[in-house]
């Protein structure tokens, strides 16, 4: 028992001074450690780290990076255990933010640039705002003749594409779930069941879909445009669906129990500022700020058929999420 206690004692970190963590005193310049849980691409995180070092040098950002669902699993487990170090969350599952806001897990914050964003992409109560936009499109190998390519998402139910179609896993990918929700809005379970009867393979995230398309294993699929743009020289090309590409908002939110809210708000504002949003565009995603150009190689959203996010749609989809995912799992 003595050895065990000695082991525990030697594993302890020793702090001197009054207990209080690393939070900066209110009113001071933003400083200290801030944990950011995100599903953003590693290259985009590296750009943000550089920007933060330049603009907010006294802040020590700590990024935990994983897929949206893994981020949600970790933060929920930490909350259940008594608290999470996460101050900011930036993932691509908008439904998680609505649920967490309802549970009182997020705190309000209105960044100056939020006013420039489409109001359907911002929580009216200010608990979250869209920090990036991803676009779900169709993709095929460039060698596929134009007349053989699908033109609409609903073509995935066409027997011409039987045994050749693929998407991500709606249970494991927030962006694919958003796409599924829009398909259900369009044609209900009849359309989705027809796709599944057509031999739809639904697995992994967008990069797994891209892998199946480029290898020819499943040459027709729905995936995020940013995956195609970031894969230099890929043999897959996008097809912008005539029935409307699906826009997936990737929100940012400040957690209610953040230990360093001053610094976290400063990072929040910087990410939504023009400088931060330029990094989003450089990372092959669209910015919710209308004044910024599209990512390189992508058309402006105004030139595309895009399914609109009307007011209240997100809440509706959140209501249906459990049932939809259960039905899909069946």
């Amino acid at each position: 028992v003595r050895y065990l206690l000695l082991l525990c004692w030697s594993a302890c970190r020793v702090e001197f001074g009054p207990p209080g963590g690393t939070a900066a005193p209110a009113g001071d310049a933003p400083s200290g450690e801030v944990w950011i849980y995100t599903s953003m691409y590693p290259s985009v995180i590296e750009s943000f780290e550089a920007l933060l070092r330049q603009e907010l040098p006294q802040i020590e950002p700590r990024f935990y990076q994983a897929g949206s669902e893994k981020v949600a699993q970790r933060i929920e487990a930490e909350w259940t255990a008594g608290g999470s170090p996460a101050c900011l969350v930036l993932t691509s599952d908008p439904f998680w933010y609505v649920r967490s806001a309802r549970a009182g897990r997020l705190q309000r914050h209105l960044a100056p640039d939020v006013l420039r964003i489409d109001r359907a992409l911002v929580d009216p109560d200010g608990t979250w705002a869209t920090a990036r936009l991803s676009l779900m499109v169709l993709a095929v190998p460039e060698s596929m003749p134009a007349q053989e390519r699908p033109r609409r998402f609903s073509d995935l139910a066409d027997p011409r594409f039987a045994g050749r179609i693929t998407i991500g896993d709606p249970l494991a990918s927030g962006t694919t779930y958003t796409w599924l929700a829009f398909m259900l809005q369009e044609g209900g379970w009849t359309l989705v069941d027809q796709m599944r009867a057509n031999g739809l393979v639904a697995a992994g995230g967008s990069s797994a879909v891209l892998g199946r398309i480029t290898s020819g294993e499943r040459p027709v699929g729905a995936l995020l445009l940013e995956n195609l743009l970031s894969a230099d020289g890929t043999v897959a090309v996008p097809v912008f669906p005539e029935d409307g590409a699906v826009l997936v908002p990737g929100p940012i939110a400040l957690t209610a129990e953040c230990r360093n809210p001053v610094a976290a708000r400063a990072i929040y504002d910087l990410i939504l500022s023009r400088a931060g949003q330029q990094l989003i565009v450089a990372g092959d995603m669209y910015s919710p700020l209308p004044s910024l150009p599209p990512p390189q190689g992508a058309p402006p959203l105004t030139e595309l058929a895009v399914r609109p996010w009307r007011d209240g749609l997100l809440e509706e989809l959140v209501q249906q999420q459990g049932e939809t995912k259960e039905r899909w799992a069946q």
Partner: protein
Amino acid sequence: VRAARTLVGLVLLLVVGLPLLRLASELLAHPGALAAWADPLALRAAANTAGLAVGVTLLALSLGVPLGVLLARAEGLEHPGWRALVTLPYVVPPYVSAIAWITLLNPTTGWLNGPLRAMGLPALDIYGLPGMIFVIGLESTPLVVLAVADALDRLDASLEEQARVANASPLRATWRVTLPLCAPALAAAAAVVFAGAAASFGVPYLLASGSPDPDWVLTTRIASALDLDPASGRPRAVAWSVGLLLLSMAVPALLGLLLSRRTVTVGGKAARPARLHLGRWRSGALGAVLAFVLLGVGLPLLTLLALSITDQVGRPFGPANWSLEHYVAVLGRARDRAALLRSAGYAAVAATAAVGVGTAIALLERDSQGRRWLSSLARLPYTIPGTVLALGLLLAWSQEIRIIVLERVTFALALADTGWLLMLAYGVKFLALPVGAVAAALRSFDPALDEAARICGASALRTVRRITLPLLVPTLAASWILVFLPAFTEVTMSVLLSGPQTRVVGAVLFELQTYGDPPGAAALGVVVSVLVVGLQLCAFSLQRRSP
């Protein structure tokens, strides 16, 4: 002994019991979650899991037993290099070998299916339960090979010679003498293979999800439940994990009943291995060993190598489409190099701790008939899916434990986002491997050796130090490797538990595969495989030189 048992018990309660209790409390808080078992899909997944585990165990035994016998006894296969070669399939990370097999045997564009079709043969389909059994079975076979070969090494050959003198044929001597003496080691290996197959996630997920009608198993259902909604899905995931636990515990219990008769043999330096003269079958035996190595590690690694040097996936494979840029990118990034070193360090510490604790448990429970609660507790985490175990560890250890003295000095025990949590996770997850291996080795030692030492006046501790541990050295070395290798490349727990300062290889592999750089993932897979193959060969050569 009682004090040591208490100390080990306390350690186990802290590192294994606490996370499991936190998970159990989830179930107690949501008793309705048990209704998840009424779901017909869960029952189908349970049936698939049982089929997978049984299939993998049978395949591993049917390949592993003859290979183990050949390596331990056959003339011409004495060189330790053969043994190192046959254990290589265990070395290749399962996540990576599944990607290679998908590339080789997917029904549409599989590289091996093209020639098969050209020969007028039907295409093979790696997606589905048979594919999973094949991939996991190949990967698990070395566990059986090592167990059989290790048991035969320690077996006193004079027992077999006596059987031959008594006019038994070689086959009869093997059946009536050799195999029963190897039975404890074989049963321990079979139980580990069964539990490992039932709890495996990466290979079943990749090989089920490529089919329009996937053969989901319990671990993939558990992952789906957590993805569905992390908060409400967790109790359901725990409920299914309990079922998985019961399934995995059933096999060791069954084998324990079958092997209730105690088997004893004289071990140590007294053993004289009897070589098997194969005569004209020698080249056939060599061919079988080489064919297994080719299938288990050669083909997957060559495929991975081809993927990693492919500049653009989808364009024809040839010199015009070859590039080393993925290797330059992976090895050029300081972060990835640091992750490699970090993983090696964490896995080494976890393996050392697991072997230490595992050996202590096996020694302490050596003579306790039927009261083996320490080893039972140590074996539990191996059968729990990595994601659920990682969540249990987060629930138990994500909060700082702070002791404040005089409002000025704080002692904070903070494991979250430190390497300690990852080392704890790896050590806890793979603790079952050394416990099983050492217990099996101890069962085949003759108690007369210990008794002789005690009669000569040696204390229990001195007997362990001077008699038991030296005899255990090969088993301990093999166990260390068995823990180190999967810990070095572990993916599912690493993704949840690693942070910015503790990025490990598993998390980087997952990141590359998930964020659109499969050739980068293949390049890292090749680098990792070459490293672990090298380590494996070094370890074997050291092991051979041990006293």
